């Protein structure tokens, strides 16, 4: 038996508390799983929250069809190993049904199309709480997001009418048709997540570590050469040793040059890094207010 629990990471204590509140206050919660490090961390926290019982809600992945193959393979293996229920809904289906229109051109991405597929899935399964891995340090609009963030029937975020959150108390009272987005790792920074993954020895997809990849340069960023990523003829493909700091769509997630091949060197790299994590996400660069606008429309 160990001594006392005072050495447990306070951010872990907070996140577990939040996840337990979700299971207790809602009828039909779901954990939104992207295959990225933040949602993988959420899965570990949920395991901890309910041990020795299983996680009492399913995982859901909104698949854009533009994911890194490594991510999908990892997702399926994790779900199988932990005996979890996984729901997958595809952006391609929303496109085929004519609900959204595929973007075209140089910066085409399916990132913003996910919103429609997500909202449809929430309605289909009548989910009343969606747990996500967003962090307040990622982006300025996210810095103001609550831990329990109420969305209306249209999935919209009203940033001017947010519920105050006092002490540890989380108010999950909602009307039929509304749902709550829940962010248990709101207060974690990128470094906190990486340090936690290292300490807990959590497995993550291989693309987070240095590997050789066929890439090309655009706007000073490094892009994967792949069928789903638009490339001009004069953008030359070259093999580079890279890794990814976030795992989004291939079409909007740029790589960074890195030799960090294991978790310890990745943590070191993050600690000394001078570019913020979302600096490699083109979806935020479209305009300074990009994230805020997407959030108002129901993006996660």
């Amino acid at each position, binding site marked *: 038996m160990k001594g006392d629990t005072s050495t447990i990471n*306070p951010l872990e204590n907070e996140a577990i508390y939040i996840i*337990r*509140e979700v299971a207790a206050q809602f009828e039909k919660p779901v954990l939104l799983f992207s295959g990225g490090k933040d949602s993988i961390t959420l899965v570990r926290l949920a395991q901890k*929250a309910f041990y*020795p019982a299983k996680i009492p809600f399913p995982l859901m992945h909104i698949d854009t069809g533009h994911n890194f193959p490594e991510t999908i393979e990892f997702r399926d293996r994790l779900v199988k190993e932990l005996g979890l229920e996984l729901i997958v809904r595809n952006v391609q289906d929303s496109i085929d049904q004519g609900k959204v229109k595929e973007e075209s051109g140089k910066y085409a991405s399916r990132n913003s199309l996910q919103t429609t597929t997500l909202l449809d899935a929430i309605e289909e399964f009548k989910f009343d709480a969606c747990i996500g891995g967003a962090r307040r340090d990622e982006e300025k609009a996210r810095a103001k997001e609550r831990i329990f963030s109420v969305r209306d029937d249209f999935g919209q975020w009203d940033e001017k009418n947010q519920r105050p959150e006092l002490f540890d108390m989380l*108010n999950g009272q909602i009307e039929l048709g509304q749902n709550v987005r829940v962010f248990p790792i709101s207060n974690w920074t990128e470094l906190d997540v990486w340090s936690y993954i290292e300490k807990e020895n959590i497995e993550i997809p291989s693309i987070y570590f240095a590997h050789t990849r066929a890439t090309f340069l655009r706007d000073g960023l490094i892009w994967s050469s792949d069928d789903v990523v638009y490339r001009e003829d004069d953008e030359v493909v070259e093999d580079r040793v890279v890794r990814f700091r976030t795992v989004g769509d291939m079409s909007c997630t740029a790589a960074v040059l890195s030799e960090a091949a294991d978790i310890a060197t990745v943590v070191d790299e993050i600690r000394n890094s001078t570019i913020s994590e979302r*600096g490699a996400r083109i979806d935020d660069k479209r305009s300074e207010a990009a994230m805020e606008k997407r959030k108002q429309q129901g993006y996660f």
Partner: protein
Amino acid sequence: MEVLKIATAGSVDDGKSTLIGRLLYDTKSLTSDKLEAIEKKSKQRGYDYLDFSLATDGLVAEREQGITIDVAHIYFSTQTKSYIIADTPGHVEYTRNMVTGASTSQAAIILIDARKGVIEQTNRHFFINNLLRVKDIIVAVNKMDLVDFSEEKYNTIKASFEALMAKRDYQEQRITFIPVSALKGDNVVNKSENMPWFKGQTLLEHLEVLKSDDIYNTGTPRFPVQYVVRPKTEEFHDFRGYAGKVYGGDLSVGDTVVALPSQTKSKIKEIFSYNELYETASRRSSVTITLEDDINVSRGDMLVKENDLPKIEKQFTATISWMDSQKLTNGSKYILQHGVNKVLAKVDQVNHKINPDYSGVDITTDTLGMNDIASVTFKLNKPIFFDAFKDHRTNGSFILIDTQSNNTVGAGFIQ
């Protein structure tokens, strides 16, 4: 790893965002792309210095008006601590945001513009942080560069703030004064060369040496049950664990506990954190507890030590911070959430409200509007298990939820 949550309070133009930006800049927490964006924006606006406030002002509406309108969270870390700053606005209408920010913070920075000195809003900022029993307060006298770094000016401001302190309810609150220039960087992270007369620590030095006991109030252990863990697997067939967070003090294996409201006694058999067993659950940790006896405990119940019972009552008086545009009146009914427990509450009587000039002269009223702070007596449909807020910050506080809109409309601190 230590995490310190800090609330900030200042009036519009006191330079709060600049101070936070300066903290980030001098601790090298601003990444190169963020710094570039700040440089670009500052230049666009024709400033001849870096506008650090751009590092924190988040929402479009705010950027347009140039003011912060909601609670924003900012993160940075040093070798010693991880810091989370709740940037709360100082504007007169936003008492509710300040109360919210202070409720989750263990320290607070109150900003004063050295040119203006202690103003009515300083009164409010101090009153709220004192009401919320934030244990460590730093009074940062900012814009010292605009008063020629005058020691005399600083001492005058310090003296008028000390006059406010005499009236405070929570006398044990620790208060430290620091003269700073957020814009120029004096005494924020680095010692000021312009104010050799100031012998104290810089703002960051002060924060760095704060110990857990300096910022947390200790009390008696309270364990509100959040969730009952019942695996119903072969290996854990009869397992019945109570998941929750420990508040105020520690609980150990072998402790005799009383389950409330049933008042049934049992002993703590095991303490789990994930798949590991511990001797003691320290305050503020999320654990799962099993008991020696098979007693009936469900969400909203509370485990406490046998000689340390909280009050178990259906009526009490509390200080309320009202946060909604719809008024609170005698007879209004709300859902009262106390920790993880929910009951129905009726306003028995609005006793009096705090004068917004903080003169100490109370105002008689029977309705409360947005941002009012008042003493209110409630009646509940069933008893809750509480302590006075002065003895237990967690178990002495609650929120009020509107039964129609479901919004959180008020916060309460039990007297």
